[in-house]
């Protein structure tokens, strides 16, 4: 289970970071979401992975730590609100600049090929 868990966190985080480094707001938002999924899973695992254990110290040899779950819950709520905000902000950026580039507009646009001036018969 540990291996699968670690691989999932790694895959989510690395794809999140890759997408954040894109220059368009939509991949950035998706990347932030993936990153926060990875972080939430990581935070969850900080209480050690255990199945079928009691969340109380002292009643059994090993126990399941309930605190990281509370932390993850808080992080999910905050992350959800922040994602909603960043989506609205990206839409605003798109509407204001008519472009969804994260810098508002393309830093460089190749100029349209110049039309050759019409040759007149003079």
């Amino acid at each position, binding site marked *: 289970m540990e291996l699968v868990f670690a691989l999932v966190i790694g895959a989510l985080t690395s794809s999140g970071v890759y997408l954040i480094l894109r220059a368009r707001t939509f991949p950035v938002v998706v990347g932030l979401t993936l990153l*926060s999924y990875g972080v939430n899973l990581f*935070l969850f*695992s900080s209480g*050690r992975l255990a199945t079928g254990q009691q969340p109380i110290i002292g009643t059994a040899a090993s126990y399941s730590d309930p605190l990281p779950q509370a*932390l993850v819950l808080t992080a999910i709520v905050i992350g959800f609100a922040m994602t909603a905000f*960043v989506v609205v*902000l990206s839409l605003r*950026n798109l509407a204001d600049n008519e472009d969804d580039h*994260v810098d508002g507009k393309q830093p460089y646009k190749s100029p349209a090929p110049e039309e050759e001036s019409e040759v007149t018969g003079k």
Partner: protein
Amino acid sequence: MNHWLTAPVLIPLLGGILQAFMGYAPIRLRRTLALATTVLMLVSAIVLLVMASDGNYRIYAFGNWQPPFGIVLVLDRLAALMLIMTAILALFCHLFAIGGADEGNRQFHGLFLFQLMGLNIAFLTGDLFNLFVAFEVLLIASYGLLMHGGGTIRTVPGLHYVVLNLIGSAVFLISVGMIYSVTGTLNMADLAVKVSQVSGEGLSIVKAGGMMLLVVFGLKAAILPLCFWLPRAYSKATAPVAALFAVMTKVGIYAILRVYLLIFGDDAGELANLGMDWLFPIALATLAMGVIGALGSGTLKTLVAWQVIISVGTLLAPIALGSEAGLSAALFYLLSTTWTVGGLFLVSELVANQRGSAKDRIITAPKMQSRTFLSVLFLVGAVAAAGLPPLSGFFGKVLILQSVESGTEMAWLWSVLLTGSFLTVIAYSRAGSIVFWRTVDGHLDKPDPLNGRVSVAAGALTALAIVMVVLAGPIMAYTDATAAQLHNSDAYIEILQTPMVGEDS
């Protein structure tokens, strides 16, 4: 247990909730209530300052849960100092906003008060995860405030600011998880005990977590590789918001002070003084970068925004060296620079309003209205910010220089700080002489005359640089005691033994 500790959190919270339901009330009523809330917050900050100045720790345990199991608010001298600094800055920013900048968005006052609530939680909390929550509260309010005033120019810097801070939050959570997985606690006092006992394979995990935490606080404080978002965002924000944001970078510095002196302090065993040898060169580089930016800035607001980065570098250098005298000097300079930078943002806005289409750009323009008043304010602010005598910035910088008296650190700090200050003077005098003195003939549409509230707010915030010189003795005594208290982390750990309500002590 001391219930006063909740006052700086509850007052802006209740005031902010009231504002949220009053979006359609007459603006005079909203303004009166909002300003009353800020004044009440200042009163509570003064009460806490008086309480804290006896040098004892006071705690408030939520739900009467004994620490480290519940979340605690902890009041010490440092927290009280940060609270009073924020409250005074916020009062003048709020007064300025009421002069007209709060129109156009019905929720401005609500966001402003929630921002203050987030700041106050961050200063009072004694729990690492609660610090994360406080950061999120103040950040989401700041996102709203940054966009206040609308317009295309604010969208892109706002987007960058939000995305960067969301990544910062993710890194914060990862580092909190790493530290929790080894120590099993997030209470700062308990962490200070547990981190010194960590050994074996847990050591490198806590070390990595601690270093990642430094990255997060560095992003908030805008230290060098993570500072380029700041000038664009701050210079585009509405003036009272930018002035309030002068305290936002100081939250990062506060968090570095708190976490790295208490948890990774001298007593932390193998992890003692984690990251501090990195922080010193980075602080000097930040200072140099800020000066370069200030020299190259094209508008007054950008110039002041780079001043924020200069002051971050100046503050972190003595903090990284960690001597008691250095900490005391840094705290003195912290007060001075926060108020001065706030005041300069307000003055720049007033200048921009009086110059027609030239705005606050550093170019020649027709002679502005109220030039004498504004130029005096700018002069006082610039002298205090650059650190020329006789104003408070000079004393702050002298104290910082005096705290390092030998060794290679002295050579580096003195040369960078003094050269930096000299070049800052050049940047300010260039800007000031072009904006105020070099006028061209031309016609300006008659701008609105300065109204009383904005003049008082900008004037008073700038004049605090003079007040600080007059009161330098008491302030120095307080910051000296604060530095001594910060170095004695054993006393902080004793809050774990505080009896709860209903227990026989």
